[in-house]
């Protein structure tokens, strides 16, 4: 990709201890499947995001391995339990050395 990937993450700013919270992440990406051909019949190489890892204060709480036929601009949402105040970080990695990171703070009372 010629431009930096744009990411949007939605983590509640505040939560009660033990509360189940929804976390949403969205990232811009072409997600070229690798199955298509250009108008000269040459294969278009695969260019997708292959994994998303989410950590909560350094501890991994969610990971996903992505394959072709997910979607352009993958939107991944999951739930976790709010245990302590801190940072929830996201790291997407993919083909051609693609890396994108984002993080959000959460305050747990």
């Amino acid at each position, binding site marked *: 990709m010629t*431009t930096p990937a*744009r990411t*949007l*993450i*939605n983590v509640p700013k505040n939560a009660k201890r033990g509360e189940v919270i929804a976390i*949403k992440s*969205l*990232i*811009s990406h072409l997600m070229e499947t690798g199955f298509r051909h250009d108008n000269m019949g040459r294969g278009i190489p695969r260019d997708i995001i292959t994994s998303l890892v989410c950590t909560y204060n350094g501890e991994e709480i969610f990971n996903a391995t992505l394959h072709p036929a997910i*979607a*352009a*601009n993958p*939107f991944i*949402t999951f739930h976790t339990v709010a245990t302590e105040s801190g940072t929830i970080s996201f790291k997407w990695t993919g083909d051609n050395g693609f890396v994108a990171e984002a993080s959000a703070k959460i305050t747990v009372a």
Partner: protein
Amino acid sequence: MSGPALRRWLVPAAALSCFAAIVLSVRAEIRLGERRSAYEDMSRDNKAMQDDDTANPGMLAVLDGEALWRAKAGGAGKSCADCHGDPEEKMKGVAARYPAFDAAAGRPLNLEQRINVCRERQLNASPFSYESRELLALTAYLGLQSRGEPVAPPEDPRLTPYREKGRELYNQRIGQLNLACVHCHDDNWGKSLAGNKIPQAHPTGYPIYRLEWQSLGSLQRRLRNCMIGMRAEPYTYGAAEYVDMELYLMWRARGMKVETPAVRP
């Protein structure tokens, strides 16, 4: 079929088609109070996607647009922000007024064309190609500044002939299916077409993120879509005919709320 038998069929058929022509010619436009955005007919999930700025993929383009707004470009070494300043206050309601008349061009320009003209005249930069990621991103960013504002076509008498041309095109039968925009979007909105509800075609959310496209697209892309569906030959991107139609469509949607960047199925 023999002569008289043929005539027996032809006469009522001709009378019927005359009748149909009369009915079609006096057809009324959708009453102002009956207008609705296609948003209202979307599924709960799609509405939620549009309403949540962290789930709406159109917002990714808005972020790109914001970066482009601030980036210096072209020979003048300026950015959009250098002249226009803070878009949240300065560009509010701007997208809701386009297309607008441009004296130098001598005809109306839509928002995309305005951005490109500004790039050429003020930034001394090359224009973005139509439907490019950059142009869509900037258009979406400007559109967002008008979100929630009413569509407000300018009351400029110079626009009238172009708007009337747009109305003419809207009512003009095209393509092998021989249908005009009006036949679906004024006469049959709310009914089903291939499992989808026919919308009223109000361009309140462009550029839209269309799930079918998996990308952002302009109103002209949508118009081309419909024309291809009619098996008509679409105009090329940026054609004057599209701008005329945009003028008419925006006038038709006057007062409705801007939703940019909208999500559509």
